Structures are given as C-alpha cells and as structure tokens.
C-alpha cells in the first residue's frame, strides 16, 4: 500500500526532479540559443585559426591584414574569456535558464505534476537548478576547452604553460553559472517579469556598479567573478577603462574573499529561492 513508501527526502527528491528535468531542459527551445551562445566563441576561434593559415595573417611578422598584432594566443584566449564568457555567456545563460526554472513549468502547466507529488517544492527548485547547472556546464565548459586548444597555440602560445589559467577559467565559469543561476532562480521565483529584471540586472546594474567607487559594487556578482579572472581585463569600452583606472586605486578583494562572497550569494539566493517557491502559489493561466 501507499503508506509503505516513504516520501523522498530533500536530496533524493531533488535528484529525481533533476533526472526528470535534465532532458526536458536540454531539449527545450532554449537549446538552440545555448548552442549559439556556446558555439559562437568556438566559431570565432575556428575563424581565427583559419585566418592564421592564410597569408593575410602573417604570424611570423605578427600581423593581421597589415596591422601589427600585439597579442599572442594566450592573450587572445584571455580576451575571449572576458568578452564572451564572463560578460556574455555566463550571465545570459544564468538569466535565461535561471529565471525559467519554475516559470517554464508554469508556462507549460506541467508544474502541476511536480507540485502534487510528495516532494517539497524546494526540492523541485533544487532539482531543476541542478539540471540547469549540468545542462549549461556540459555545453559551456567544453566550448571553453575547444576555444583554448584552438586559440592558445596561435602566435607561439604554449598550451602547457597556460593550462593552470585554463583550470581557473573553467572553475570561474562554473562558479559563475552556479551563482548567476541561483540568483536568477530567485528572481524567477519572485518577480512577475523575471527576464526583464534579470537583463536589467546583468546589463544595466552590474556594468554600472562595478565601476562606481564605494560599496555599490558589492551588490553584484560580476565584481567578485571578475576579481577571480586570471586574465587582464580588456580595455575596449569606456567602462572597462574607468574600471581599470579605479581598480588600480582601490585595493581589490583577495581570492578567498571573492570566493567567500560568491559562496554566500549562492547559498543565500538558492535558499531564498527555495523558500519563495515553497510559499508562493502558482496560478496557471487558462
């Protein structure tokens, strides 16, 4: 009889939801988007490689199309880590998937099947979050790896010597996905228009506060993540120039302080998201 089956505890329940949610998430319409986001840098890397074999890209003379190249492979890789992954892929995927953890199920009205099971709603969120993490990591991290092997050997870069930096990058991107996912999981559980809120946070709030002097920057994820990046910040746009100027004046946080801050944000956001989901009613539209 039914009474003989104990309801799963939080951990196992989350794992079951994960199992259910992973395939669902991996083959949703977002997959196309994620493939583009993760595949884009790889494509650029392949293009750079192709260019390197063409006469316009005279590696020996350090020129591309007659313009001197002042970077070598590792520098280009560092640049790509910043512009593509830290500033684009990680926050965008965090927003896109994080805000959809519950919203997707609500929109598809399948949340009923999860919320009428003897499983804490928090476990549903945790399981979906886990699925998000695996789903994005399994696509984004290999993308970083491919870019590394494509780009670093350019112009005399050494795959071996830069390997520790790659490990840091992989860890950093993993941590970024985890923290952004948790933060936007909370946003998704809380706000009516989570996507817009998320986009404003990532592309409005964060770039602004990390360059402002004072304590505002502590209210972002990017500040801590960027503090951990092993590569120099690219000096392209005005914001990063200001940021570079300011960081040379301010004492940046140490590695452990950054990691601790990220861990605190992660744990707090995830716990809060679980709590919100536990308490909130989801009225399915007819």
């Amino acid at each position, binding site marked *: 009889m039914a009474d003989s089956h104990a309801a799963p505890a939080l951990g196992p329940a989350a794992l079951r939801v994960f*199992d259910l949610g*992973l395939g669902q998430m*991996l083959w949703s319409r977002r997959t196309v988007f994620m493939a583009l986001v993760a595949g884009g840098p790889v494509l650029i890397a392949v293009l750079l490689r192709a260019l390197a074999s063409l006469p316009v890209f005279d590696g020996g003379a350090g020129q591309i199309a007659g313009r001197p190249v002042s970077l070598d492979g590792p*520098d280009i890789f560092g640049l790509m880590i910043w512009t593509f992954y830290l500033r684009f892929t990680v926050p965008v995927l965090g927003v896109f998937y994080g805000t959809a953890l519950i919203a997707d199920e609500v929109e598809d009205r399948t949340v009923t099947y999860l919320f009428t099971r003897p499983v804490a709603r928090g476990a549903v969120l945790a399981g979906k979050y886990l699925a998000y993490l695996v789903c994005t990591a*399994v696509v984004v991290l290999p993308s970083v790896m*491919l870019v*590394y*092997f494509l780009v670093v050997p350019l112009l005399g870069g050494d*795959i071996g*010597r830069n390997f520790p930096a790659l490990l840091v990058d992989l860890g950093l991107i993993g941590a970024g996905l985890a923290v952004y996912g948790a933060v936007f999981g909370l946003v998704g559980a809380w706000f009516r228009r989570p996507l817009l809120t998320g986009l404003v946070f990532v592309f409005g709030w964060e770039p602004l506060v990390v360059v402002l002097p004072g304590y505002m920057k502590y209210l972002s994820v990017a500040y801590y993540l960027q503090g951990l990046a092993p590569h120099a910040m690219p000096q392209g746009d005005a914001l990063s120039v200001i940021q570079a100027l300011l960081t040379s004046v301010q004492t940046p946080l140490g590695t452990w302080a950054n990691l601790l801050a990220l861990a605190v944000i992660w744990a707090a956001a995830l716990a809060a998201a679980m709590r919100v989901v536990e308490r909130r009613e989801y009225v399915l539209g007819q």
Partner: protein
Amino acid sequence: MTMTTRTRYVLLGGAGVMAVGLAGGLVAWVSSRLPPLVAQERPDELRYVPPEATILSFANVREVMDSNLRRRLREIQPELDGQREFQERTGIDLERDIDYIVGGLVPDGPDDTRGIAILAGSFDADRLETLALEQGGAASDYRGRRLITIPDESVAMAFLEAGVIAIGSEPLIKRTIDLPFAEGGVDSNDSLMGLLRHVERGSTAWTIGRLDDPRGGGWLPDEVEAQVSQVAAFAAGARVNGGVSGTLTAEARDEETGRNLRDLLQGFLALARLQVGSRPELRGLLDSIQLTAAGTNVTLTFDLPSDAVLELLPDRSDADVAAAP
C-alpha cells in the same frame, strides 16, 4: 534514470571533450612545468668549457631574436647604435649570425676568475681574422686550430670548428683547445651539471653555478648578504616568447637556511606588493611571482606577458625620442 539516449550522448560528449582536453592540457603542462622530469638538454659546446668552471650560462640568441617580445621591442627601439657598429667592425650580425652562446666562469687562483664565451653560428672566419689583425692582433696555429690573440686587451679568439668560436683569456682558450684531447669538458662535472635539472626544458637562456666562496659584492643589504652567503648553488632559466617566464632555484647549504631564505623572500615580496601602488607597472611581475620551497631548495617562478615586460623597460618614451632623428 529516465534519461533519453540523446541526452546521454550530449552528456557523454561534453564529458568526453572535457576529459580529453583536461588530460591533454595536463600532459602539456607537466612536460612544460616539471623541470626535474625533463631537464634542459645540453649544448655540445659544453665540452669546450673547462670542467672546473663554477658558473655556466647558456643563451639561445636565435630564439630571443625571433621572439614576439623582441619584435615588440623593435617596434619601440628600432635598432641600437652599438649593434650596427659591432656588425660593421666584426661582420657579425647579432640578429642573424649567432645561434647561441655558452659562457663559463673558471676560477683562476684564490681571488680571481676568468671567463670564456663560446659562440655558435655562422661566421666569416677570414674577415674576423683580418679584422683582428688590423686591431694589432697576432694570428697563430695551436694544435691545428687558428688562434688570434690581441695582446693589449689580453683577449684571445679561436676557431674551434666550423661555426664555433671561443673568446676569452689566452690561457683559457688554449686550455679549451686542449680539452678534447685531455680530460673532457664541464659536461663531465656532474656536481655542476646536476643543477640543470632545475632548469625547465626548452629554456631560452639559463645559468647555473656552485658558490663555494660566495661574495655578495657589497651592494646587498647585510641581512640579505648573510643569507646569500648561505646559498650553495643556484639555477635559473627563462623562456622568452610573447613575454618572459622563468624559474630561479637556490640551493641552500642546509634546510634551516633554506627556510630562512624562503621567509626572507616572502617578506620581500609582501613588502614589494605593499609598495606596488606607486609603481603599477611592477604589479604584473609581482603578481606572477610564486615562491615554493622544498628541502634545501627555494624556487621562484614568474611569468610576464609582453605588455608587462615593456612596462618594465626604463624610459620607453625617452628611447623613442632618442631614436628619432
């Protein structure tokens, strides 16, 4: 698990890429980072350096000249005046003709040392000889090798074999020519050559030495000098490409000294980091320095991208101005 086959393929694919990448990267890293496993290979010319040499250096000139860093340096300082003059006088183009240089310091009596340099590359022997004779040198044959001595400067030069020249004091040069016939070169000095294991394979330049009679030279602070006197041997290697990276290993006389040395260096680094605010160009260097200690050995590694190296160069702007006509 209710995972579909397609999902499983994606997971396996992702994990596969990661595994292959990590394994490949790890192998590449190990082979580049662990000098004791694969020590620097030895140039053949070591056999011309006397075995009693205490300090031995090697520089791969060709690699430096071809490096990205050098290219960038040239953008800033197109050419050095001295270089052209040297070429006009010797017929040796520093940029092209020298492949590498091996140098040694050999003790000569209790208080003196003599140096020898062995250059490998392509040289115009006749032109060099003519040039030397013009400067008042004298040419002779010694054991079938052409030997040119310039008495005023007590410097001698010998053509050891095609494309290999030795420059140094006359007795040392003669000894060099004798070596292959007698006891053999420094490559048979296991105590010194053993230090090469600290030098990363593929280093562009390296230097190793055993300090039996260390002298700080008076320019170091007393405390440091006291420590340096405890260094029994050192090995340093550097690679030049986009930037400069390298390791410096010091072998202390005992473990206690090793620890002291490490603490001292750590203190130094901490101090430097504190003061780096006023010299932002040093930040890259300091951030890249890593200090490790094992037994009697203390090792410093650093890694500077080309930008940081250029930052470190003194008075770049002045050089630019000076170079302009």
